[in-house]
């Protein structure tokens, strides 16, 4: 007789493999996790196994989602991601993409900041839909992410950032993502955060317009607490404008660096 924990309940069995156990118990499942790792059904049963039998053809409860994330990345990595909070300043072509990537990877908490509403021109590269036109970007993006079945809690602030409100809004965030549009606003946010928030690291985007090679988009650590992602030169306001693939590339490079910082990788 073997004793194991099956879907969080103690269970005793005489069967030798999980195939047989699934048949015996008639649990409707298509995914097996044994001791934190996904395993094939023919795996042998050992006394003391911690087992989840999951049906992933239906929405999963948060604890089961967490177990699947743990199985995918390892519990230590998932703990760091879940304990992290990131403030995303600007929810356009960069910020909307970054927020979704960080939520999907399992970051525990996001603060989404933007003062603007969705308009029809935004749909060319920002993560909104026709039905969002007229809604605040904060409200629309929060609603979309909550439909993704992630493990992320979301706060929003429908505010235009300025030198006075940046410190109170961002004081509890050690990672700040700059995803604003105007270069003066980018400089203002970075200057204010680096001057008045001594524990904050800023990951900023600069230079991602047009259709030059994607290989020119790089992440560089330019100051001890400032990472800049982009090609450094391609302006959004003149020339060809912002195009979804290259803006998305910059956004995901920013999200990647934020993920690395959460996982204590300080290099680029």
């Amino acid at each position: 007789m073997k004793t194991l924990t099956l879907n969080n309940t103690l269970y005793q069995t005489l069967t030798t493999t999980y195939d047989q156990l699934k048949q015996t118990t008639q649990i409707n499942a298509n995914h097996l996790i044994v001791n934190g790792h996904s395993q094939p059904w023919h795996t042998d049963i050992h006394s003391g196994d911690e087992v989840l039998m999951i049906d992933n053809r239906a929405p999963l409860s948060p604890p089961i989602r967490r177990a699947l994330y743990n199985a995918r990345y390892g519990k230590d990595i998932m703990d760091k991601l879940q304990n992290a909070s990131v403030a995303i300043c600007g929810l356009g072509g960069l910020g909307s993409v970054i927020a979704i990537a960080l939520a999907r990877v399992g970051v525990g908490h996001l603060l989404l900041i933007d003062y603007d509403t969705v308009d029809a021109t935004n749909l060319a590269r920002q993560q909104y839909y026709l039905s969002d036109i007229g809604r605040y970007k904060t409200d629309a993006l929060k609603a979309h992410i909550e439909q993704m079945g992630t493990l992320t809690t979301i706060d929003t602030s429908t505010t235009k950032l300025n030198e006075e409100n940046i410190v109170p809004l961002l004081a509890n965030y050690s990672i700040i993502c700059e995803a604003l549009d105007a270069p003066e606003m980018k400089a203002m946010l970075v200057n204010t955060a680096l001057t008045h928030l001594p524990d904050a690291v800023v990951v900023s985007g600069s230079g991602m317009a047009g259709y030059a090679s994607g290989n020119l988009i790089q992440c560089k650590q330019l100051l001890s607490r400032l990472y800049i992602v982009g090609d450094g030169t391609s302006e959004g306001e003149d020339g060809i404008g912002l195009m979804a693939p290259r803006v998305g590339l910059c956004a995901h490079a920013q999200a990647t660096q934020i993920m690395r910082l959460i996982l204590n990788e300080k290099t680029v």
Partner: protein
Amino acid sequence: MKANGKEILLSTPTTLKAFLTEQGYNIERVVVEKNGAIVTNEHFEHTQLSNDDRIEIVHFVGGG
């Protein structure tokens, strides 16, 4: 002086504002660190540069 890693010899005393303008930067679009500390743009005019200084200039282009 060192600016973004490059050696620059200052022939006359100059302010940070004059230096940035001469180098073609828009002072509303930069983040500047002098000897490891951020200098915000309201202080550019009163910040003197000398040949012992090390500055880093980050300039932003639009789009997001």
